[in-house]
């Protein structure tokens, strides 16, 4: 009897430790989500911040707007391309550079610098160095006889992809390198003794062991690129036209530029549902594997 009450008392005080965190998240994430839900069914505006019920009007407007599908398409394509390039580049680099970096950890830090930079400021810096007239890269290319306008309509998509890939390949590299370094030397030795060297040991022993890390990298990078906002916003503002409008920039524009608040909120809710679905599916996959 006394034992039981002792345990429940412990449990009760443990719950008390969770209360501040739960209250905080409830107030600052739960409540806004509820506001969002209400707004998505109302005719909210900057003048009328409570709004009145209008049914599914906002959702119909959101779903029938071809620009939303365009923005969604951009984000999905952008995420798939960037994730693929980043993970592939990082994986190749891990196998090339691992023997070098294992003895000189400080060198890894040099490769990690780009991901410490705010993506917004990274975007501004690229805007400077890619400037058609005075930017360092176009100037050098012109000296070599190739005039390239990186920020023009024809190249802008490739440019925003390249910036994302150059900034975040280091992240993918770091996670995969960390996973690679936890594989014990003994195991590699044993594999070598068994005659597995070079590509064979890479594909049959190392890659399978790095699989959990690979899954995480793909998931994190996909999510992050999918919700991209910062560097594209400062570089192009989503333009020219809607060429580089991601779903995040699309919602921002609906809200702050066009003032179509109800539609913006409806798209937000749709995006929330999509993200939750993706997370649940990804969690299922990870749990089933492990």
């Amino acid at each position, binding site marked *: 009897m006394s034992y039981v009450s002792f345990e429940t008392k412990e449990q009760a005080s443990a719950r008390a*430790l*969770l209360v501040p965190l739960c209250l905080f998240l409830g107030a600052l994430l739960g409540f806004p989500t509820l506001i969002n839900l209400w707004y998505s069914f109302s005719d909210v505006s900057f003048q009328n911040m409570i709004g009145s019920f209008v049914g599914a009007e906002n959702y119909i407007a959101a779903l029938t707007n071809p620009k939303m599908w365009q923005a969604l398409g951009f984000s999905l394509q952008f995420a798939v391309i960037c994730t693929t390039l980043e993970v592939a580049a990082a994986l190749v680099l891990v196998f090339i550079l691992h023997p070098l970096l294992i003895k000189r950890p400080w060198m*890894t830090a040099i490769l990690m610098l780009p991901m410490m930079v705010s993506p917004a400021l990274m975007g501004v810096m690229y805007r400077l160095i890619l400037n058609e007239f005075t930017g360092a890269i176009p100037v050098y290319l012109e000296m070599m006889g190739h005039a390239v306008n990186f920020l023009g309509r024809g190249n802008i998509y490739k440019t925003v992809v390249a910036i994302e890939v150059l900034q975040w390949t280091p992240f993918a590299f770091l996670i995969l390198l960390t996973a690679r370094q936890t594989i014990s030397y003994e195991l590699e030795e044993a594999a070598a003794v068994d005659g597995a060297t070079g590509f064979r040991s890479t594909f049959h022993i190392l890659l399978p062991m790095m699989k959990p890390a690979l899954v995480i990298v793909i998931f994190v990078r996909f999510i992050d690129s999918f919700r991209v906002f910062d560097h594209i916003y400062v570089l192009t503002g989503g333009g020219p036209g809607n060429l580089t409008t991601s779903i995040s920039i699309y919602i921002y524009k609906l*809200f702050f530029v066009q003032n179509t608040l109800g539609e913006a909120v409806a798209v937000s809710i749709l995006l929330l549902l999509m993200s939750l679905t993706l997370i649940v599916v990804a969690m299922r996959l990870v749990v089933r594997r492990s």
Partner: protein
Amino acid sequence: MIVSRRSRFDSVIHALRWVVFVAVALLVNFPILSTMLTSFKNNADINAYPPKWIFSPTLEHYRTVLASPNVDYVHYILNSVFIATVGTIFAIILTLPAAYAMVRQGVGKNWLLPVITNLRALPLIIFAIPFYFMYKQVGLLDTRIGLALISCIINIPIALVMFVGFVQDVPRELDDAAKIDGASMWRTLWHVVLPLSRPVMLAVFLLSFIYSWNEFLFGLILTTKSAVPVTVGATFFVTSRGIEWGPTAAAMTIGILPPLILGLFAYPYIGKSMLAGAVKG
């Protein structure tokens, strides 16, 4: 004979690894290097054709930026310092006790921990609109504390995951010894767990500070003047009166320097925190 050929092959491979390293390091860091160099050039050197790599450095653009009458950059820097520091401290205060309760008593470990861990996967723009209205109602628009709360939310998942990993590594015997001495859970947390948590606390602080400093979206939406963070303020140099290359480059350099320096110490924790979240989350 075979041995020497073998070792020559090895040294070629080794040299190639170095070539790849240098090439990749230059490629990914090029904008940072180029911007930093530009910030120390005088206007004539900036416009020189071909671009100069060797020049006599000047601090004039830094003086311009820090004393600019149009853009109060020093104020923005202080805003970012405040927002990142306070947001990080809030996140630590909220998550360390929660992590302890989750690991030791198992409360919420099966539902709350995965929910919070996955929060970092949600697109932040979803919350931008309700936050704008909420903050407008309660007068938190364009305030430092308003943005500090946002930075706290952003950092809660990573702080919680790292603290959970830490508490799992604290030997249970230490807790039990304190318990036998009659210490309550709060006292155990304060006198046993907290002193041990210094290294992980530092790691959480570094990562949270970097992430908060680099936040842009909410700074853009929720501030206009008095609480503008560096990431947003730096863009003012580009859009105000055309691009002034020198001052913009100096502003960029100041804006990226704090996270760059902290990142030199923090980067190993990023790898660990990501992998820990997967195994335990």
